[in-house]
C-alpha cells in the first residue's frame, strides 16, 4: 500500500470518470433529441401522399421542416399564405400561417419547423411555428 505522500488516484475514480463521461454523453444526446426537434413526437408529413390525395390526411397533425419561399397572400384577420420548400426535397407546398402569428417577421430564405394540421380542402394550417 502506498504511503499518504505518494498516493495516486484510486481506480474507483477512473471508473467514476468513465461513468460520468457516459452520463454526460447520454444527457447531451437526450437534450439534443428534445431541443433540436421540438415536434419529436409528431410524424413528418408524407408529401407524396398529401399531393396525391390531401383529403385522406384531413384532420391529421404533422411536422415539416421548411425554407420560406414566397408570400402568396396576406389578410390581417386570416393570416399569411406562404409557399415553402420542404427541406431535403424539391417539393413546394402552401402553408397558411394564422393571424395569431402576425408578430413573426417571416422572410424569404428563413428556415422553420412547422406543426401543421391538414384542414378542409387540404389546406395546411400552421398550429405552431419555430425557427430552425
Amino acid at each position: 500500500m502506498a504511503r499518504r505522500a505518494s498516493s495516486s488516484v484510486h481506480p474507483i475514480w477512473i471508473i467514476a470518470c468513465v461513468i460520468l463521461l457516459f452520463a454526460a454523453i447520454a444527457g447531451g444526446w437526450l437534450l439534443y433529441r428534445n431541443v433540436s426537434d421540438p415536434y419529436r413526437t409528431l410524424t413528418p408529413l408524407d408529401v407524396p401522399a398529401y399531393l396525391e390525395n390531401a383529403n385522406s390526411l384531413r384532420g391529421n397533425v404533422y411536422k415539416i421542416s421548411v425554407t420560406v419561399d414566397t408570400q402568396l397572400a396576406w389578410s390581417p384577420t386570416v393570416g399569411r399564405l406562404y409557399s415553402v420548400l420542404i427541406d431535403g426535397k424539391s417539393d413546394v407546398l402552401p402553408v397558411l400561417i394564422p393571424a395569431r402569428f402576425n408578430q413573426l417577421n417571416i422572410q424569404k430564405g428563413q428556415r422553420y419547423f412547422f406543426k401543421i394540421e391538414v384542414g378542409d380542402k387540404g389546406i395546411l394550417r400552421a398550429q405552431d411555428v419555430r425557427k430552425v
Partner: protein
Amino acid sequence: MLELRNISLTAGRATDLLLDDISARFPQGHLCAVVGPSGCGKSTLLKVIAGVRQPQSGSVHWEGRDLEQHDLEPHEIGYVPQFSIAFDLLNVTESIETALRLRVGGLDESVLCERAVEILADVGLSEIADRRVRVLSGGQKRRLALALEMVSSPILLLCDEVTSGLDAKAEDEIVQLLRKLASAHEDEPARTVLSVTHSLRHLDSHDSVAVLFEGRLIYHGAPELLLHYFSLDKQEELFPSLARRSAGAWHASWQKHRAAYQAAFVNAEQIVARAEAEPVENVPAEEPWKPPEIPTRPVEFMCPHFSDQFKTLLKRRWRIFFRDGGQLALQLALLFGFPCLVVIFAWDGLPQIQNLTSSGNVVQQLLETAAFTLQSSRVASLVSGLVMFQVILLTLIGSNNAAREIAGERAIFEKEKFAGVRPSSYVLSKAVFLTTLVAAQSIWMAVFVNTICRFPGDMLAQSLILVLVNGAMTAVCLGISSLTKSAEHASLVCVYLVGFQLPLSGAVLALPHVIAWFTRPFIAAYWGWSGYLQTMRDTRFYDVVQSISQTELSPFALCGWVLLCHIAGGLLVAYLGAKTSRWD
C-alpha cells in the same frame, strides 16, 4: 523510534541504485546529521522516510509499526524541503497563522494567535513578524520553514539542506534551532530530527552522523568516532577520503565494524530509556541537547474541518491576489481592454438588412437576390465574427485565469497536502476564486458590448453563455494546471488549447463532417459561439448567419449543457490531479 530496514531504491533500471540496503535506527529526541557527497542519496533517503518516494524493497517503521501499513498522521511528521514553502506575498505572521489554520483544528482565535507568537519566539522570528516572505534572507526563510513545521509539533522532523547557502552565523543559528527542536523543552515533546546537510562544521552538535556514499550507508554513529573510523585528522577531509575505496568496500567495512562502533556509541536510545526511568527533575537543565524526557503530547491535534481549510485557502488566495500588483494590473487590463477591442468593430451598431421582396420580373429578382446575398454575407460575417471574437477573447482570459493557478504553486501545495490539506478543499477554493473572476469578466463583456454595440438578443442569456464558455476554459485549464509540473508548461499547453479553438470551431471554415463530429464536443468556442447566436434567434441577424455558415448551429440548451460538462470535467481532472502526488 524511527527504524529503516534494508531500504533499496532504484531509478528506472534495476542497476541504477539510488539507495542500497540501508538500515538504521533513530531514537526519539535524537538529532542526526545525514551527510555525504552530492548525489549520494541523502535527499532521496529523506523522501523515502517521508513517504514521498516508494522504496523497491525494505520498510520504514515508527515505534515498531510498518508505515506502509499504518502511516504517520500529517501532524506527526514535519518535512522541510529544499525549496521555499511559504508565499512571497504573505508576511511571516500570516504564513504561520495560515499554517496553523490549515493544519490544526479546533483552535479558537486567541489560542491561535498565542500559538503563533510562541512559534515565532521559538524560531527567533518575532522581530520580523510583519515582514513579507520575499524580503527575508536565506536564513530567515529556513527559520520560517521550520516554524511552519512546528505548528503541529511533529514527533518526526525531516530537514533537507536547511543550512545550505547560509553564512556561518546563520548556519550556527539554524543548527542550534534544530538542536532545540530535537530536545524536549517546556511543553514541547522530544522529537527525532534528521537533517540532511553538506556542511561538516557542526557535526559535533548532533547526536549521530549518518554518512551516505553512492546510495550506501557507510557510517552511522557518534560524531566523535567519525574521524577515527575514517582515519582522518579533520572532518573536512571526509568527502575527499571516500574516493579511496568503492562504495561497496566502504559498506562491507561498515557492516564488519558496525557492532564495535555502535557499542562504543553512547547511543541516544539508552539515554532515552534511562531518562524514562528517572524522574524528570533529575535531568540537568544546562544540557538541553540531551534528550532527557519524552513528555506526552500537550495538545490533541485534530485535522481542521474541510470547510475551515477551504475558508483559509480562499482567504489566502484573495489576499495574495490583491497584493500581486502585476496580476491585478493584468486582470484589470483584460477586464476593461478586451471588451473595448470588440466594440471597435461595431461602434455604430449592427447594420440593418434589406429583405427580399420577391417582386418584379426574373432579372429584377436575380439582381435583388444577388444584392441581398452580398449584403447578408457582410452582415453575417460581422455578427458571427463579433460573437466569435468575444468568445475567443474570453477563452484567452480563461486560460490566463487558470493555467498557472495550481502548477505555479505545486511545490507548496504538495507540501501542504503532506501536512494535511485536503485536495478537495484546495480545488474548491480555487474554483470559487476563479468563479468570481469568470463572472466579472464575462458579465462585463456581455453588458459592455451589448450596451455599446446595441447587440440584439437577451442580454441575460448572452451573459450566461459567456460565463459558461469562460468558465469551461478556466476549468479545463485548471485541470491542465493540476496535471503539469511547471507553470510554464501549463501555460504553453493552455495557449495551444486556445489557439485550436478558432480553427476547430467551424465558425470560420467548416470542418469535414467526420472531423467535426470528433472535435466539436471538446471545442468550447463552438458552443459559446453557437449558444450566443441562439440568443439572437428571433432576429434577422440569426438568419443571415445561418444562411452563410456551413457549420450547423446547436440549440442553446445543448450549448449550455456541453459547457457545463466541460466545467465539471475540468474540475474533476483538477481534483484528481491535485490528489495525485507530484513531488519533484
